[in-house]
């Protein structure tokens, strides 16, 4: 699957697993695209760890919105941004709060799903997505809290780095969190981390199960419940 199409397919597939009422936090990069497939009728709320519930998809003029009621709050450069520091809109019923509250909601298990990109993930659900020793230092941001606290951790990633598998027996890079990941979404399928290892829930029929195993370091569990990804996830990407 071509890379850009793969990204959109993964995003759409994840959106399909978001249930009404879910509070969802999207990491930067690949995960951000999930919001493109979240429609209003899905009743899903977006969480920004910088202190917002109800992040909107598109940036509308938040300043104009408040001019009516609370003139005193209209300050030229007070914006709503998402966790990637990009200007964002808000949806109806949105709320603002401070970082301590925001991460309280995360650690307290009130965020139903966090979607994160990764460099490595392994069969114990360990995830490594914040640093490569000897390379440019970035910082973990909110990833460790999200991995530890969110009710469900979804990984959105290309199946391989292009050179080598990303789904490993054991992560080699410094971990972001241990035993954290619930499900891995790639262009090749949907993979649940279970106590016995990584189980293929469904796969993209463009690939054979053998091809998928070949692109994966961890031994995949393939049982009689495995299905192919429903065709509608490949449409209107």
């Amino acid at each position: 699957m071509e890379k850009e199409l793969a990204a959109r397919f993964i995003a759409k597939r994840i959106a399909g697993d978001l249930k009404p009422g879910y509070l969802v936090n999207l990491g930067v990069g690949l995960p951000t695209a999930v919001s493109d497939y979240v429609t209003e009728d899905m009743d899903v709320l977006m969480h920004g760890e910088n202190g917002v519930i109800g992040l909107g998809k598109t940036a509308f003029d938040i300043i104009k919105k408040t001019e009516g009621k609370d003139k005193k709050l209209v300050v030229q450069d007070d914006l709503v941004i998402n966790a990637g520091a990009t200007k964002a809109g808000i949806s109806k019923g949105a709320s603002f709060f401070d970082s301590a509250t925001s991460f309280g909601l995360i650690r307290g298990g009130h965020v139903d799903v966090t979607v994160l990109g990764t460099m490595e993930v392994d069969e114990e659900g360990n995830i490594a997505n914040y640093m490569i020793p000897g390379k440019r230092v970035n910082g973990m941001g909110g990833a460790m809290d999200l991995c530890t606290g969110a009710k469900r951790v979804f990984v959105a990633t290309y199946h391989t780095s292009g050179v080598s598998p990303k789904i490993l027996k054991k992560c080699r890079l410094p971990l972001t969190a241990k035993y954290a990941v619930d499900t891995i979404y790639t262009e090749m399928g949907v993979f649940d981390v279970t106590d016995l290892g990584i189980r293929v829930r469904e796969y993209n029929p463009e690939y054979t199960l053998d091809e998928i195993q070949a692109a994966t370091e961890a031994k995949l569990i393939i049982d009689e419940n495995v299905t192919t990804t429903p065709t509608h996830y490949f449409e209107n990407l």
Partner: protein
Amino acid sequence: MNKVVSIEKAIENIHDGATIMISGFGGNGAPHTVIDALVKKNVRDITLICNDSGTLDFGAGRLFTNHQVKKVICSIIGPNPESVKQHSAGTLEVELYPQGSLAEMIRSGGYGLGGVITKSGLGTLVEEGKQKITIKGEEYLVEEALKADFALIYASVADTVGNCTYYGSAHAHAPSMAAAAEFTILEVGNLVEVGELEPQEIHTQQVLVDAIVLRGGK
């Protein structure tokens, strides 16, 4: 007690080597006017506590560009190449924490708690050299409280005694920083009279604010 002062007066006691908390998230919601003045005053050897090191020309990031920071305690430095470069060169000390731990460490400093009992960072490099504690059979990491000499925060609206309300993404760590510092300077977008803010819409209480300056320095 009217706390509105000139920007020069507000920062007059900020000295070389001070520990300073600066609010904002990726520079958004940062006290830009106070940061301007800090750059102009050229205070050196700052230990900076902030969410992230901002960008080159926005937010607390400007202090790196001007080589004013000796050490930064934050959760992200990636988006500011200058902070990354100085760290690689060994001229900038960097202490990174999970953002949620950082938030509680600042709050703990302001609210008289010794530290934070969290699972964030367990089983990672973050736990190295730190105390752990077991509660009801579960293991947690202990992250120590943070305090500062000065907090520089921004709010959209405030009254002249320092009660204030944040808006949008400007909230972030500001209320905790206001509590965790010896001296808090509040930069405000719109200044109102005492009594104009309703008691239930005040996010940070006047007692945590020591000086108020107007955005733009008017």
